[in-house]
């Protein structure tokens, strides 16, 4: 049986052509991509040597245009449908040598970005014209990061759209994450900066971006904007305490995690080739529950302490609550977990490590989704053949099949509603649906009771 584990050598997972090897157009596109990358690398190697719009535009057109065309040509030769050929046998997508290399490259990039940005200087300078045009300020490491992030979401988003061009749910969802990344997480914050306003990200709020509701942000700090100051505060608080519960009630956590959020957007685009690497064992689920709710509890308590501290003359944490915060939570959760591990480990642990094990927003949305939402995944009677495609391609590591083969609804806190389980199902068994809350599982009609039971505060009925 062990021979089967490494069975065969289907076509490489990132190319999808009908015949082995690359065809002419694909070769040309790949060459353009490489050339664009070369310009970028030269910029890194020789800071300041490449300046002005010409090398920047050449890099963008060749790299992004080349990669997009490559996917275009590669998928054009296939019939629309699920084409996961070779994902489990190709080293890039199945933790082979190339997968590990990519893991190290991604991880290394984050380490350099957060703590040793020196070597990035050349790349940052290459982006100056764009940064000046958008934000009236020279580029810095965070501009470089935002630029690369957005480029990845757009190019790999196009790939995702080509892969799922037969599936309108996937098409709309991918357009949505591309739109929110480009507009709300890249253009808008930079334009605000040009207007001498704080770089406000409308799509990140407490507890994912706790800073927006911490005392020094609200009572001083970056809400000093005369034009928008109070609005930023209303929006930040409103998103967390009003919009989130309402939208999650109506549609489940997917409205955020797989349609709007930038972390989710990257996972659904750049991370798509590795979604099947999420561990779907029961042990992983147990670890996940403790970790993610632990982070939510931590940031909730920490936020409370910081407010009490600020209003008790710094009696608890001393004067420098903000420094303490950035050195602890900001370092371990914000940088290490969400960045280095969250994205760096895509090729090793799947695309949703952060969303699944660490994101406090996902934990909050998850509790709402599990008990106070109309969302569920329905299964279709007796049609399940237990094949395992759904569980394999669930990026959150949910054992979807375990529910589907029993004919049970899937009501799980972690489900981000990406819809890929329903897409890969060969027998039409799964459907993401919103409907009456009480239909979802026995006891769902009494959500508060179900919640307390799950916490062990009430005996199970």
């Amino acid at each position: 049986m062990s021979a089967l584990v490494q069975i065969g050598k289907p076509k490489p997972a990132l190319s999808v052509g009908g015949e082995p090897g690359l065809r002419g157009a694909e070769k040309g596109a790949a060459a353009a991509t490489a050339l664009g990358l070369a310009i970028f690398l030269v910029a890194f190697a020789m800071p300041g040597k490449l300046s002005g719009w010409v090398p920047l535009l050449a890099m963008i057109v060749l790299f992004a245009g080349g990669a997009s065309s490559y996917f275009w040509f590669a998928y054009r030769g296939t019939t629309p449908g699920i084409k996961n050929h070779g994902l489990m046998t190709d080293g890039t997508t199945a933790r082979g040598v190339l997968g590990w290399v990519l893991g190290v490259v991604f991880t290394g990039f984050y380490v350099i970005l957060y703590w040793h940005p020196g070597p990035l200087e050349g790349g940052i300078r290459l982006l100056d014209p764009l940064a000046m045009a958008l934000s009236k300020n020279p580029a810095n490491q965070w501009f470089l990061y935002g630029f690369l992030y957005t480029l990845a979401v757009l190019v790999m988003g196009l790939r995702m759209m080509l892969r799922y061009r037969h599936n309108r749910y996937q098409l709309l969802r991918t357009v949505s994450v591309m739109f929110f990344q480009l507009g709300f997480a890249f253009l808008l914050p930079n334009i605000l900066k040009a207007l001498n306003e704080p770089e406000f990200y409308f799509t990140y709020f407490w507890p994912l971006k706790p800073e927006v509701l911490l005392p020094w942000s609200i009572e001083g700090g970056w809400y000093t904007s005369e034009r928008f100051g109070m609005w930023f505060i209303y929006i930040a608080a409103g998103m967390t305490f009003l919009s989130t519960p309402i939208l999650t009630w109506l549609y489940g956590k997917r409205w955020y995690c797989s349609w709007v959020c930038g972390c989710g957007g990257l996972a659904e685009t750049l991370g798509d080739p590795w979604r099947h690497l999420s561990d779907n064992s029961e042990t992983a689920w147990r670890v996940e529950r403790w970790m993610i709710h632990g982070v939510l509890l931590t940031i909730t308590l920490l936020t409370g302490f910081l407010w009490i501290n600020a209003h008790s003359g710094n009696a608890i944490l001393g004067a420098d609550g903000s420094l303490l915060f950035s050195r602890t939570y900001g370092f371990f959760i914000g940088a290490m977990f969400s960045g280095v591990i969250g994205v760096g480990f895509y090729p090793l642990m799947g695309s949703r490590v952060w969303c699944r094990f660490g994101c406090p927003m996902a934990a909050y949305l998850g509790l709402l989704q599990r008990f106070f939402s109309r969302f569920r995944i329905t299964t279709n009677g007796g049609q399940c053949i237990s094949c395992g495609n759904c569980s394999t391609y669930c990026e959150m590591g949910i054992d979807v099949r375990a529910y589907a083969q029993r004919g049970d609804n899937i009501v799980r806190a972690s489900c981000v509603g990406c819809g890929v389980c329903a897409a890969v199902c060969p027998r039409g068994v799964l459907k993401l649906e919103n409907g009456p809350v009480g239909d979802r599982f026995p006891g769902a009609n009494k959500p508060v009771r179900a919640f307390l039971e799950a916490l062990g505060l009430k005996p199970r009925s």
Partner: protein
Amino acid sequence: MHVVIIGNGITGVTAAREIRKRQPRWRITMISAESERHWSRPALMYVYMGHMRLQDTQPYPDHFWAKNRIDLVRAHVSAIDVSSRTLTFAGGGAMTYDKLLVATGSQPNRFGWPGQDLARVQGMYSLQDLELLEQNSVGLSHAVIVGGGLIGIEMAEMLHSRGVHVTFLVREERYWSNILPSEESRIIERVIAAEGIDLRLGTELTEIHGDERGEACAVTTSSGDRIACQLVGLTAGVRPNLSAVAGSAIETGRGVLVDDTLATSAPHVWAAGDCAEIRRPEGARNLMQQVWYTGRLQAEVAAANICGDEAPYDPGIWFNSAKFFDLEWQTYGMVPSRPGEGQRSLYWEAPDRRTCVRLVANGDGTLHSMHAFGIRYRHRVCEGWIRDRLPISEVLERLPEANFDPEFYKRHERQIAAAMRSQL
């Protein structure tokens, strides 16, 4: 009490789980010659195509078996002695049972074609077939597949996914003609052609030619063509696997003969799933059902009877599903390939010439059966309509209730209803 189950497919596993639910203390042993653990047979193709690893196709984690005290034995049962209740294993060893369930499934048909025993000629059914196909895929550029059913098209898709050119020989004049009406056959034929597969209808295999190493190197067809190839896939249906019961006192016909409680002619022995042939009252044809869902359903009934809870097998309302390359098919009720006496068949096809729905009406205008390509429908809703004999006019009105496609998909129900009303 010791229950032994021969076979660890969906039937064997479902029976083991059901018996465990009813009898927490009984000893349960499941024997398989094919594999250590249960895995999903319909998922075999995805392992070859690199969509999943074999372990991903196993519905239960490794600790499941110990936790539920289901003992797994890897052995080939070569003889069953029903008087001493003893199983003999090929290669030595024996085991006694108190109650026995035969769930040995089926095996690929071979019709005595010249050259069928050459190397690089194979079926596509078992784990061993998959391993063999893997070996045979080395240096493979052209394959010939023989047989126009579900396994044939799956094998074509598998090989096609690795860039192997496939010639697909189908004896009938249209694809899967004993099951599908002709419009649907044509759809599948277009799907096959669109993939670049060389589909030859009305063509039979006459001979497989071997080279000096005893490996298949070409076939000759009934139209006299000689096609060079490095692999011949034989997928002309399956028949019950009777190797374990052969030579025993258990009565067999085409399959293991059972009554409607799935009991065989021998005491304390039951049979279920692909290998079982259910006797019907005088005049009616014996029932043989060889799909995933009936294996599961029969296992539940067999388990109940083994545990002493008298439960006759009720096949219920037929359903099935499959996927032909990218095109999904779901059926509720048995849609006839040609409408029977008094039946009326209503058909709608989308402009894409692959999405379609067919409703079949009984003589009294009520729903007999329905199926769809490219649209998903809800099992429980459609089953309810068929069971309750809902008038077709009402079905057409309520069709949107049954739609199970993902959100934002284009809905066709209004066009379907309009088209079918004009056929009434």
